[in-house]
């Protein structure tokens, strides 16, 4: 009887143990993107994006801890103006030069969390460091609409949400055309990630 009880107790506790363990999620590059916004000439807000960031996060919902790591190819920066027409360069090409992202010399920028705060059961704020143009500075992200659960079609476990933040590009040495192109850059990250099997 005691032996049966012990086996039942072990079997019952297995899912709890699995739930308590940190879970690693890999970013779904198709459904993850980073949008940016700067003000142009004090007039309009100019928006663009980076395509297909890669990365992962580790989530321990029982312990309410997490870590995030995202890498972006700077050459994927896009303003929507990629066709030169009769001009010597498009805006996207200009964004890749040393005036802005210097994509040849610094092909990636990365974000790594240093601490995460939960809001109830969900991610709330992420403190971390952004490395851009070889300079690393703190960047705080506010997470909204964070949800985890199975993909309704594939049934794979996934998490997703939106994060927002802002930084001064001059802090990273990107001083070209400040203030005509605003120093403050706002970013929005829409992120989806699947649990590693």
């Amino acid at each position, binding site marked *: 009887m005691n032996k049966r009880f012990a086996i039942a107790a072990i079997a019952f506790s297995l899912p709890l143990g699995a739930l308590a363990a940190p879970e690693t999620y890999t970013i779904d590059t198709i459904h993850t993107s980073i949008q940016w916004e700067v003000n142009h000439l004090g007039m309009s807000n100019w928006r663009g994006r980076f395509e297909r960031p890669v990365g992962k996060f580790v989530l321990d919902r029982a312990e309410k801890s997490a870590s995030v790591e995202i890498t972006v190819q700077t050459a994927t920066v896009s303003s929507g103006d*990629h*066709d*030169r*027409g*009769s001009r*010597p*360069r*498009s805006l996207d*090409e*200009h964004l*890749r*030069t*040393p*005036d802005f992202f*210097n994509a*040849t*010399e*610094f092909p990636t920028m990365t974000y790594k969390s240093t601490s995460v705060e939960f809001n109830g059961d969900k991610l709330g704020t992420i403190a971390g460091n952004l490395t851009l*143009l*070889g*300079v690393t500075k703190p960047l705080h992200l506010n997470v909204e609409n964070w949800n985890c659960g199975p993909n309704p079609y594939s049934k794979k476990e996934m998490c997703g949400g939106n994060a927002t933040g802002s930084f001064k590009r001059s802090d990273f*040495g990107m*001083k*070209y*055309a*400040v*203030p*005509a192109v605003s120093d403050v850059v706002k970013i929005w990250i829409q992120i989806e990630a699947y649990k590693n099997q």
Partner: protein
Amino acid sequence: MRELLHHPAVQAGVAPFVLALIVALALGRARLGGLAIVAAFATAVYLIADFNFSPLTVTRKIILLGMAAPIVGILADFAFKPTRAGGVMLALASAAATLWVFWPVLAQRETAQAWLLAGTVTVATAGMVGFSQIFLSEHPIRAGSAGLGLGLGAGIASILGGSANYATYGIALGAGAGAFLLPQMLTGRKIAAGTTFVLPATLTAGLIAAGAMVLAQVQWYSVLMLALVPVAARLPLPAKAALWLQAVLASLYTLIVAGLTCAIAWQLSRGTAG
């Protein structure tokens, strides 16, 4: 005032020219008028970037060399007599400096492309430095005209290649060379150029053009064409003509070659898929 200093024409042209003119007038008699070109370049760096050298990027290496070049120049002018061997040594040192600036970036490219670009930037920069040191450094009008053509050529080609910062640095060099020439044209008295002027002018302009090629979209043909600017400054001038006329003619020669550099950059940029 602050808005004025943010204007690209002030950052690239007016402010560097004014500072360079002050230096040329103040130090001309001390054989240091050549520092005018460094004053112009430093003004542009101050206005659009900073003198922070960490991390040591390609652009910051160019700025560092642009600031170090006049020190070498002053040493060469005051401690040594100008010789051909000295010019060759400066050319070789410039080639090494150019590889130091660009090789970390070029090494990430395919081997054939890396060698083509490395060869172009090294030959162009070393050629400009060596030729100018040997044939132009003792001729302030020719040297100033070469600086004018190199600066404006590198600057305008950089605009076409996509980098406004590099354009600002190049045009500032041109403004500095203009400020070096102007007092000579107005007074009819020469200001010594020497290595103090020639080395910063040619090395910095060469590195700017090379940077716009490696990091933006200036083509290697354009950089090689720019390297012919000092050769144009060597074309015959009427020896007995007034200095202002010699300066106008020499500048015309160099600006034609600089114009060809920009025309190639313009044509090729239009012909390349965006």
